[in-house]
């Protein structure tokens, strides 16, 4: 029987993968690292008598899947790696590499161990208005309109004092306050592509990372609408009331996320609005800014 193994999937240069690998190395664990740039990684899966099993070759090492006790999954598409792009896309190696990637993703969804996070649980964040409907039982969500119809957009803008706009999907966009004149000028573009309009919510931005049942809150103060792109953003670790922390834990559990980054705004009226739940949070940046031991918490979760 092999020793219990923690499997880490992802590019070694990806900051969160790097920090989790570093944190794991401080623990007495056997670590296997599936780097998508290593095209010799392979896996075969078996499901029989109710047991998921199989074997993987990871970084040249044979890993019995039944020995894997936890997985940290930040696997990016192997097709994007320079090593894969050099292959004949119709050749046997490329076929096997894509097959292995597909199988390892399948296994992450069914593996009988802790997986941070299972791939199929990451999808909700790619449809923000849909995710907002999932968030509603736990937090207020901003009044939102997703539309390509100018009349509907104008009516929405007229019914709210201030409005921001952003992407509906996981495509990166900068949250921007809407100027009504800009909207009218962009009528042809809006017709072609729906936009997510959202009421502006006053308050303090708080990013809450939920790691298992541990909560790490970071308050962010910035002048811009989107603190990610604001050069003057001030990040500091903060405490949030227990009831809000509990709701964050419950929301993450409802979405079956072992690790999440929940974007809240604490309103002056005492209420809390939730904008979205990120299933692949770039927690390393928050750790660097606040000193919160996020990678260590993830490593602890993987080792528990």
């Amino acid at each position: 029987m092999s020793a219990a193994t923690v499997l880490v999937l992802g590019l070694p240069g990806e900051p969160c993968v790097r920090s989790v690998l570093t944190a794991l190395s401080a623990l007495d664990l056997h670590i296997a690292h599936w780097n998508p740039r290593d095209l010799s990684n392979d896996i075969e899966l078996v499901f029989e008598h109710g047991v998921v099993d199989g074997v993987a070759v990871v970084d040249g090492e044979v890993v019995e899947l039944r020995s894997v006790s936890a997985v940290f999954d930040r696997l990016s598409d192997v097709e994007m790696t320079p090593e894969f792009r050099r292959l004949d896309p119709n050749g046997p190696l490329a076929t096997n590499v894509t097959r292995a990637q597909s199988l390892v993703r399948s296994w992450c969804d069914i593996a009988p161990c802790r997986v941070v996070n299972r791939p199929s649980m990451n999808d909700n964040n790619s449809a923000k208005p849909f995710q907002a409907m999932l968030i509603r039982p736990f937090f207020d969500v901003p009044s939102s309109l997703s539309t390509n119809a100018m009349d509907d957009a104008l009516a929405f803008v007229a019914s709210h004092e201030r409005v921001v706009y952003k992407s509906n999907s996981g495509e990166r966009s900068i949250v921007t306050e809407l100027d009504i004149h800009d909207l009218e000028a962009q009528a042809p573009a809006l017709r072609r592509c729906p936009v997510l309009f959202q009421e502006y919510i006053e308050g303090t931005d708080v990013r809450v990372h939920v790691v298992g049942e541990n909560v790490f809150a970071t308050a962010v103060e910035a002048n811009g609408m989107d603190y990610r792109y604001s050069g003057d953003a001030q990040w500091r670790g903060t405490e949030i009331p227990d009831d809000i922390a509990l709701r964050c834990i419950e929301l993450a559990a409802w979405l079956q996320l072992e690790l999440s980054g929940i974007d809240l705004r604490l309103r002056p009226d005492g209420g809390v609005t939730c904008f979205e739940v990120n299933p692949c949070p770039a927690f390393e940046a928050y750790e660097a800014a606040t000193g919160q031991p996020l990678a260590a918490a993830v490593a602890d979760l993987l080792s528990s």
Partner: protein
Amino acid sequence: MILVVCEADDDDAIWVSTELSRRGQEVTTLLPEEFIVDASISVNVTTDTSNATLETRRGDVVRTESLVGVVNRMTGFPRDVSSRLDDKDLVYRAEEIRAVLVAWFAAAACPVLNPPFPYSAQGFEADDVRWRCLAHTVGLPPLPFASNRPLRPDHPSIRGLVVGDVFLHSSDETRAPRVIGAGLDLACSVASPLLELEFANTEDGLRFVRASTLPHLRRYGLAVIDSLLDCLDMA
């Protein structure tokens, strides 16, 4: 109104649409492309409510509040390839449309058979091994899976169809209460009230193989229409 969304060559969906109309139901049938080609689409979400509207190119207006049921048979999210956008903008636009469409169906308060998932227009999708794990979880004995063995079983296939809380049979083998109960649980567990289950008839008995959210409906006859109406609470 019942909304049926299907591809132009989806004979099963067109048959459903026709039979529902024949029973006096108001049915609107749309192609997936009608959600995006010269259409106006809006989805409102607040803490308390959600609703959505669609005005198609030909002027049909569909409001989710007016729907009593949706039969979704999209095989993929529609993409408008006629636009003169560069590749990057096309990808962005396709992603935005996908996200809005998922929300559009989710905004409907009525039964949706089946609701699109964020990356699966037809509803819940899984590969064979995941389906078999899910089946095992609800008590359906699955056929063993091995990634290095052929996916197609060497046994005769038998199918059954879940429509809401009804299990329709294409043969007697699926009539065991244990199979029916577990089949209904499986459909419930993947939020897909319209689910066709495929079994292999082995020497050890019935073994679950896979399921589909795009079932062949006509093979179950008019019982499908009765069950759909039951599911939409319109019998």
